[in-house]
């Protein structure tokens, strides 16, 4: 695996005293999509700004394509395409003018710039609306142009900070296709979101952050396996409950039945069906519950509100 991006023990504290990033380390394979998950204030956006060179880190090292970004200075912008959470476009300019401006900021010129603008407009499906003012666009169209502006200079790494907030499913799907296209072209993608299903759908690996720390990381299956055991849901007529059967499993009432969580679903099923057959109870429902990223996320970060 060739590593495109590597964070080693990265720390960042804002002047107000908040420790935004607290010893974060992870690696992202070249051409992969890496998901960053975390509640509000977990440090996702700060990490993205550190990687994009917008803010300096206090301690640790960030390496992009085997080069420390601290040594890249002005050249970092040539390798990274940063898409902020906010829609950072000039609404009174049209899409073409906005892209032309950003292209110039990335150092593109002349015919090459014109060609790149035409290409990214096509990629985000807005060639027909290129001469319309961005202010007249829907939220989804603005999001797509927001992304297009970061692709103009053909970056090696694209950093997307919650790019699908508040948009329609069509635009969201278009953005997903765009990200898959980036991966096919060998571009590495760092993707931050609150939507678990987006990470499940797009990302090869992920990290869950909380309070500036990585609390889980790896491939989706690994993270699910490490932090969530198997669970079986059962509904039985006139039954006291399975508590006495499972001394080593977690049992809780849920809906009209019980949810039994343990290390092995097979073992739970085996013991449960044996006991029910012996007692002659009527089983109304028996389901194997697959762990989800959302259940892992809530388990790791808690259910308390993070406003």
């Amino acid at each position: 695996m060739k590593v495109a991006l590597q964070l080693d023990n990265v720390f960042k504290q804002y002047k107000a005293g908040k420790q935004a990033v607290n010893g974060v380390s992870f690696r992202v394979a070249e051409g992969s999509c890496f998901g960053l998950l975390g509640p509000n204030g977990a440090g996702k956006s700060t990490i993205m700004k550190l990687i994009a060179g917008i803010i300096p880190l206090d301690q640790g090292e960030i390496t992009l394509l085997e080069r420390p970004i601290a040594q890249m200075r002005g050249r970092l912008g040539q390798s990274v395409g940063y898409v902020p959470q906010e829609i950072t476009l000039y609404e009174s300019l049209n899409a073409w003018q906005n892209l032309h401006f950003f292209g110039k900021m990335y150092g593109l010129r002349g015919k090459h710039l014109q060609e790149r603008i035409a290409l990214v407009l096509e990629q985000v499906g807005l060639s027909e609306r290129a001469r319309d003012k961005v202010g007249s666009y829907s939220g989804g169209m603005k999001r797509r142009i927001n992304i297009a502006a970061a692709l103009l200079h053909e970056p090696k790494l694209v950093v997307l900070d919650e790019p699908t907030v508040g948009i329609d499913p069509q635009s969201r799907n278009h953005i997903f296709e765009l990200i898959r296209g980036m991966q096919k072209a060998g571009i590495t993608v760092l993707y931050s979101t609150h939507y678990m299903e987006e990470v499940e759908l797009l990302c090869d690996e992920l990290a869950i952050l909380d309070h500036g720390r990585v609390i889980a990381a790896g491939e989706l299956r690994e993270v699910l396996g490490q932090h969530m055991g198997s669970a079986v849901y059962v509904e039985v007529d006139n039954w006291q409950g399975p508590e006495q059967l499972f001394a080593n499993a977690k049992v809780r009432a849920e809906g009209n039945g019980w949810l039994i969580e343990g290390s092995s679903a097979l073992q739970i099923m085996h013991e449960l069906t044996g006991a029910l057959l012996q007692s002659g109870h009527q089983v109304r429902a028996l389901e194997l519950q697959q762990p989800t990223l959302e259940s892992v996320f809530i388990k790791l970060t808690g259910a308390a509100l993070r406003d």
Partner: protein
Amino acid sequence: MVFSLFAKELRLIFQDKSMYFWMLALPIVFIVIFSTIFSGADAENGNAVGQIVPGYTVMFMFFIMISIVQHFLRDRDSGMLARLSSTSIRPVPFMLGMWLPHIVVLLIQSAVLLGFGRAVYGLSLGNIASVIMIVLALAICATGLGLVLAMLSRSLNAAIAIVQIVTFGGAVLGGLWFPFSSLPEGVQAVGQFTPQRWALQALQAAMLEQAGLQAAEVWQAVLLLFMIGAAAAGAAILLYRRFAEKSFRT
């Protein structure tokens, strides 16, 4: 990159219709009203228009500070500044790209207002080279102060209040509304420290007395205004990082 920022910023300024009101329509209305009121009363003092047209031109040039603050705060608060920091642009070219269009706007504004005085009231423009240099120096001064204000402002409303103090306070103290010699001695003493006073004095010398660049009233004012503008722009560059950090925080 500076030119691209310059072109974008100039386009945004010209798209803002309120700018035409504040920078052109309102000063022309003021010039017409006050020229009408004072044209008879000033007969014994010479040329009322020679006081009013350059006076109001100088005064309204300082309103550009609002636009500068507005544009910087817009870019900071929208996250644009953070995004641009991820590109190849560096702070000094960024500041230049934001600054220069506002100087161009002031050059256009002063050309229109002085041209209006010439066309409608037959105001003599006197020594054109001196007038151009004074206007350029004043434009650099007013926009430089605007840059510093932008770097220090927390909100547009607070900045507007400060611009009004600078503009109207400077107008009263600098003798833009009434001939400087008619002001009380105490006001005159304070007024000597305002850029408005120096600008008007130099403009009147160049326009009404044909004073060239070698005239002390002209070159001293030009030098002073340039220096204020350059010092203010330098201070703004030093304050930029602190200003931008507010955009970088999440």
